[in-house]
């Protein structure tokens, strides 16, 4: 006895650091999880928390929780947490991992969540080889909602929606083998099915889960661990019976094992990539023009041409015409000029269903405030490069707005009242200047003069940036100037 007193003990296995000490749930139950006694979700949570601890990644882990009994990951894991809509965790995980490349993102999902409503998300995340870790908890039923059949329900297994036992003859299909299916893809790095059926299986499950997280830490790619997990409550078994059912029954339908392991072939390569990236310092901002191959003077000058701050700016322009008339470029030059003048802009092309000889149009907004929507449904300037485009959009122009129409005869049945119209054959004018394809720039000149906000220096800078051929830059500049004159002449004529 006295010997025991001098013996010293330290904690060998205890609650993981990655769990909160207490959980922010019902005040009287903050020291307990919400899981039923003997639920496999608890074991899997522990394995994940231990893996996060051991790999030292708690401060950069983001857990994506599912809908189902595993929904409350955010109660338990002291990491970043997002709870996704049913089945969408892999899509959310993709976004998280891509926008925060330093993070370790774990998608935690049940079999209803992953293999039924979320079957598309998991398939494509796996096929893209997202660098995420997926923990797939297969308990062969929808547990949270009271035990409906899942795609993974065993043949003959009773559930509230397969009361006579699942039967393909009754149109209920076969158990879906998610791991085997995903392993046919080329992108995934590691896929293993483990079970919680006995001590040995549980020990293997813990190793597999750690490995799947470690693969992500090493930047290897997509890993998924399917865990056959007891649900004593819905299975109507004691926790010990449920554990044995995993080993003795479930495993026959869902054999355990590694279905895909490309860690070796991806390993050195991925590590080299990472090392190369780390060795290369990020380029300085001042170096970007050189790297991108643009001359310093062609860069957006920001506030260099900034317009007077008291001037209100709200250009909502719709430009429409046939494909090939330069509709999109007209819009781009306009938006780019706005950008150069230090304004908020948007440019939204809208393509017709035909790739060739169809119509096209685009929306441009230029404003002092942030642009809330790039759509221009009620333009204050409509640039219609042909008659069908005029007919399509004439009714949408705001009262007091302008219609610039490419045609000397404005169709008598098109809207004139409440709007100003400038109708000229811009194509002919451009032709006279050397190339009828410059008609878009003549019309742009008129639009710029109407709006009257954008400095010519900004327009010239935008042109130089967007049009590479100097001959065209020269012609376009003349065309724009011509458009400005035409507008002024038309005012004088009134």
């Amino acid at each position, binding site marked *: 006895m006295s010997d025991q007193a001098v013996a010293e003990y330290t904690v060998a296995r205890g609650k993981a650091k990655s769990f909160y000490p207490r959980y922010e749930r019902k005040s009287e139950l903050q020291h307990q999880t919400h899981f039923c006694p003997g639920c496999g979700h608890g074991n899997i949570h522990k394995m994940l928390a231990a893996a996060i601890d051991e790999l030292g990644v708690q401060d950069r882990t983001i857990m994506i929780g599912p809908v189902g009994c595993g929904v409350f990951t955010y109660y338990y894991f002291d990491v970043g947490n997002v709870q996704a809509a049913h089945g969408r965790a892999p899509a959310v995980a993709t976004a998280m991992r891509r926008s925060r490349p330093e993070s370790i993102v774990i998608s935690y999902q049940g079999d209803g969540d992953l293999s039924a409503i979320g079957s598309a998300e998991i398939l494509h995340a796996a096929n893209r080889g997202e660098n995420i870790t997926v923990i797939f908890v297969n308990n062969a039923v929808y547990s949270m909602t009271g035990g409906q059949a899942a795609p993974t329900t065993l043949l003959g297994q009773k559930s509230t929606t397969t009361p006579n036992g699942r039967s393909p003859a009754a149109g209920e299909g076969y158990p879906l083998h998610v791991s085997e299916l995903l392993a046919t893809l080329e992108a995934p790095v590691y896929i293993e099915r483990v079970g919680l059926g006995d001590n040995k299986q549980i020990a293997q499950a813990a190793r597999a889960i750690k490995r799947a997280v470690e693969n992500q830490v090493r930047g290897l790619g997509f890993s998924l661990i399917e865990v056959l997990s007891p649900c004593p409550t819905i299975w109507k078994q004691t*926790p010990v019976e449920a554990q044995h059912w995993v080993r003795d029954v479930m495993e026959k339908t869902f054999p355990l094992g590694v279905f895909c392991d490309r860690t070796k072939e991806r390993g050195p390569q991925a590590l080299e990539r990472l090392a190369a990236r780390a060795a290369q310092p990020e380029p300085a901002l001042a170096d970007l023009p050189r790297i991108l191959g643009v001359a310093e003077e062609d860069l957006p000058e920001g506030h260099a041409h900034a317009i007077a701050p008291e001037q209100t700016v709200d250009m909502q322009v719709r430009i429409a015409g046939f494909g090939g008339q330069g509709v999109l470029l007209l819009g781009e030059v306009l938006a780019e000029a706005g950008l150069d003048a230090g304004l908020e802009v948007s440019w939204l092309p809208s393509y017709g269903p035909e790739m060739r000889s169809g119509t096209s149009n685009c929306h441009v907004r230029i404003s002092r405030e942030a642009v809330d929507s790039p759509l221009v449904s009620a333009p204050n300037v409509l640039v219609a490069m042909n008659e069908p485009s005029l007919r399509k959009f004439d009714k949408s122009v705001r009262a007091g707005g302008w219609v610039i129409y490419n045609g000397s005869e404005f169709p008598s049945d098109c809207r004139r009242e409440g709007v100003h119209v400038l109708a000229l054959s811009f194509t002919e004018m451009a032709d006279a200047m050397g190339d009828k394809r410059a008609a878009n720039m003549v019309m742009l000149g008129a639009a710029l003069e109407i709006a009257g906000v954008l400095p010519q220096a900004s327009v010239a800078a935008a042109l130089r940036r967007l049009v590479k051929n100097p001959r065209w830059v020269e012609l376009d500049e003349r065309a724009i100037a011509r458009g400005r004159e035409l507008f002024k002449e038309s005012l004088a004529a009134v």
Partner: protein
Amino acid sequence: MTEATKPDRGRLRIDEEECKGCGLCIEACPPKVIALSERMNRYGYRTALYAGSGCTGCGICFLVCPEPGAITVLRLVSPGATRAAEGAAA
């Protein structure tokens, strides 16, 4: 130096408030030194109870227990030092 005086390689601490009495640790424990208590905790669970000796510190109960902190397994730090202490006492 007799077997009886040799300290156990492991020890168990069970949190009665967190244990849900599922019994998985009892089933899993190789030397069978865990049992269910007769007394219920305030949530109505008969919780796991360590017999008080015989734990080898293997940690299997921790692994099979679904609760994050219901079981803590401790291991003997320095059997050598302890044996020396035993020798001194003999």
